């Protein structure tokens, strides 16, 4: 029987025949024939899986490993002997010994017709599309030798391009109605902004009442962009403005780079996922024309200091002052997609969020105040660019409250893909650049800041500092690897006991600090429901990242994405971290420097609150 767990209608789900755990039983393996090959597959394997396991290529379009199967594009059709109609290999489970033909004249013609039909409605040229050479429709057209518009070609755009959102641009003229974005938004992220509107030929993917994206509850996570096979969805690209700033001799353009883009940018240059190019990137950026290159991990360390102190303050209020109004658990606030999610869906719980800004925004504020002073540059002439794996950061830097420096703290959010494009524009091949270090006065940061990129990283970094601050000892984990924080499980729970605390923190003696780590807004929603039901009363700290996998799976990362690719990026981040000399935020000498010289009241002091902390907006779900 088919259990309905997902929100997507059954019309777009496959029939999952449970694969038997022991395939040596009778009926556990089925003998089938694919073309001339006779193979044996476990019961319940789909034809597509069987073909892939046997190196037989079947083209797909609406199929995506992260999402449930749809069976709507019809391009993966194959002939199954005995059946009149062609069957889609992505949805058909093998339960009987069948003979499959993947390349008969009928199949080839069907595939070619489908590509021709899609092309006949696809408005836009490849050479001006940001997915040129990385587009699944383009690849199919090449594979099937399309040399002509068999069914004509659309000459006028049918839909207006939606440029309302700061983060995501929707061009439905290029949409092939694979519904991946719908499945991502409703099923994977459970935000529910996109769905198919109208019927038949008038069908298009739209928002509630076809309103502009900025007016509905889109959280800007950009997961839809990562999964779109064509250029129908893209991020809002500011690189032209950045080139202008770089070319303007009066402007001092600085860039901060985050760990996740550095772990993934190699993919844009043809390198296998899993290699970080941090130091090569520094050189490339200077050669492009950035005046200074800084490490966002510095402000990640800063975030740990601020947020860690905030947590200890809340704990003191709860345990010593017995203040009932203190909100625990404290939720992290560095993921702007998560922030917009909670502002829309759970606005009554905003007080649980840490008031600390995200590392990107903290850095922006620091650059236009502290750095401007140190470097003796007028902050009005400083242009701050942030290289992020994130599409929501484009929205975040435009928030009205993000100008505590007196200027717009971060001027532009740039994604990994856009950065790669700028580097290529300058004729630079990134992987072969010489390695150079980050600029002073922020220099190289700690490893704790680096692991922010993976889910569980913020938690791990915070624990390394908080535990040591409270007990004076290192966290009791080998090589500082806090394994309960690591891994891709949706919601991770663990705890660490605080014993033999330093005199200042005696109130925490014996307290078992419980924490939760969740990634993907579907899991964030689950955590919030747990909070609502009162199941988090003994939890102290929760880390939430809006994107599956954490920031390394962000909406600005290279396309395509899959669980395997995200795991490789995570490995790259953790490996890079272990090679660093300093691995705890509070040991970062540049952090000590900024607190001595600038934020003299210490973390959560008055100046910190002004520059490094923020407030949130209750947005609610109602769309007016």
């Amino acid at each position, binding site marked *: 029987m088919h259990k309905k767990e997902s929100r997507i209608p059954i019309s777009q789900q496959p029939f999952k025949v449970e694969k038997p755990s022991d395939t040596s039983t009778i009926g556990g393996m089925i003998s089938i024939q694919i073309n001339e090959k006779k193979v044996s597959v476990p019961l319940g394997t789909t034809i597509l899986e069987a073909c892939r396991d046997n190196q037989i290529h079947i083209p797909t379009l609406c199929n995506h490993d992260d999402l449930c199967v749809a069976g709507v594009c019809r391009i993966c059709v194959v002939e199954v002997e005995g059946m009149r109609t062609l069957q889609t290999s992505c949805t058909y489970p093998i339960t009987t010994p069948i003979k499959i033909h993947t390349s008969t004249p009928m199949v080839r013609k069907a595939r070619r017709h489908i590509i021709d039909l899609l092309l006949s409605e696809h408005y836009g040229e490849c050479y001006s599309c940001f997915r040129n050479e990385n587009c699944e429709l383009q690849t199919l057209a090449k594979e099937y030798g399309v040399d002509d518009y068999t069914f004509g070609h659309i000459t006028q755009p049918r839909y207006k391009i939606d440029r309302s959102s700061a983060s995501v641009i929707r061009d439905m003229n290029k949409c092939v109605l694979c519904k991946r974005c719908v499945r991502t938004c*409703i099923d994977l992220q459970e*935000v*529910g902004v*996109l*769905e198919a*509107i109208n019927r038949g030929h008038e069908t298009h993917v*739209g*928002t*509630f*009442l076809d309103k502009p994206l900025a007016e509905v509850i889109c959280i800007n996570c950009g997961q839809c962009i990562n999964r779109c096979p064509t250029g129908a969805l893209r991020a809002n690209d500011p690189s032209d403005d950045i080139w202008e700033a770089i070319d303007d001799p009066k402007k001092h353009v600085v860039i901060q780079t985050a760990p996740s883009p550095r772990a993934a940018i190699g993919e844009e240059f043809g390198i296998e996922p899993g290699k970080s190019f941090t130091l090569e990137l520094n050189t490339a950026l200077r050669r492009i024309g950035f005046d200074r290159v800084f490490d966002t991990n510095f402000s990640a360390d800063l975030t740990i200091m601020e947020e860690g102190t905030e947590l200890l303050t809340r704990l003191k209020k709860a345990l010593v002052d017995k203040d009932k109004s203190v909100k625990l658990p404290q939720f992290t606030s560095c993921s702007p997609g998560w922030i917009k999610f909670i502002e829309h869906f759970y606005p009554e719980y905003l007080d649980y969020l840490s008031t600390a800004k995200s590392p990107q925004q903290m850095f922006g504020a620091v650059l236009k105040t502290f750095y401007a002073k140190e470097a003796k540059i007028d902050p009005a002439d400083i242009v701050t660019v942030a290289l992020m794996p994130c599409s929501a950061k484009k929205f975040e830097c435009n928030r009205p409250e993000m100008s505590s420096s007196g200027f717009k703290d971060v001027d532009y959010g740039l994604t990994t893909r856009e950065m790669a494009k700028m580097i290529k524009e300058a004729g630079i091949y990134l992987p072969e650049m010489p390695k150079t270090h980050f600029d002073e006065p922020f220099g190289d940061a700690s490893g704790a800041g680096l692991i922010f990129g993976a889910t569980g990283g913020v938690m791990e970094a915070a624990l390394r500092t908080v535990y040591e601050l409270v007990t004076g000892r290192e966290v009791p984990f080998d090589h500082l690897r806090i394994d309960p924080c690591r891994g891709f499980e949706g919601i991770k729970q663990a705890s660490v006991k605080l014993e033999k605390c330093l005199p200042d923190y005696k109130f925490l003696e014996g307290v078992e600090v419980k924490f939760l780590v969740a990634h993907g807004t579907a899991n964030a929603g689950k955590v919030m429901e747990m909070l609502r039901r009162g199941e988090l009363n003994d939890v102290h700290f929760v880390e939430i990242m809006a994107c599956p996998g954490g920031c390394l799976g962000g909406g600005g990362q290279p396309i395509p994405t899959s669980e395997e690719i995200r795991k490789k990026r995570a490995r790259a981040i953790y490996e890079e971290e272990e090679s660093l000399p300093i691995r705890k935020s509070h040991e970062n000498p540049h952090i000590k420097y900024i607190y001595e010289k600038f934020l003299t009241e210490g973390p959560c002091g008055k100046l910190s609150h002004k520059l490094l902390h923020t407030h949130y907006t209750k947005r609610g779900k109602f769309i007016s």
Partner: protein
Amino acid sequence: MLVFEKNSLSQEIENLVLQYGANRSALLQILQAIQRKHKYISDFAQQEVARLMNIHPVEVNSVISFYSFLHSKLQGRNIVKLCKTISCDMAGKNNIESAIKRELGISFNETTNDNRISLEYTSCLGQCDCGPAMIINEKVYTKLDPETAVNLLNELK
């Protein structure tokens, strides 16, 4: 929409959810009930339905836009659907069409200025042996000729 109108609509939808249930399978029945009474499902109604049934508003909108008989946009007080499929077409639907357009002064897929009548086409009504046929507010009228059709419309309030 005025506050008390919104409140009464919310109350109405709450009652419908109580009557039909808050499961997804009750969605179409609830939308049909709202459509029958108000002749369309406003964006406020859609969001209320979404809130009470724990669905995303865009999903409600998607379902409404799929079915021809459910409308998101304001319609006239009376919705008139004329069958345009082959049997009614052969039986003389074109004459009825022109007569109606002439009489009301509007085209199909439009509403009269006084909001009295909305005209639209529909596919086969299953009255092929006694065409041409049309539906006015859920009632079916068959064996029409231009005069009868126009008289029927003129009687509508």
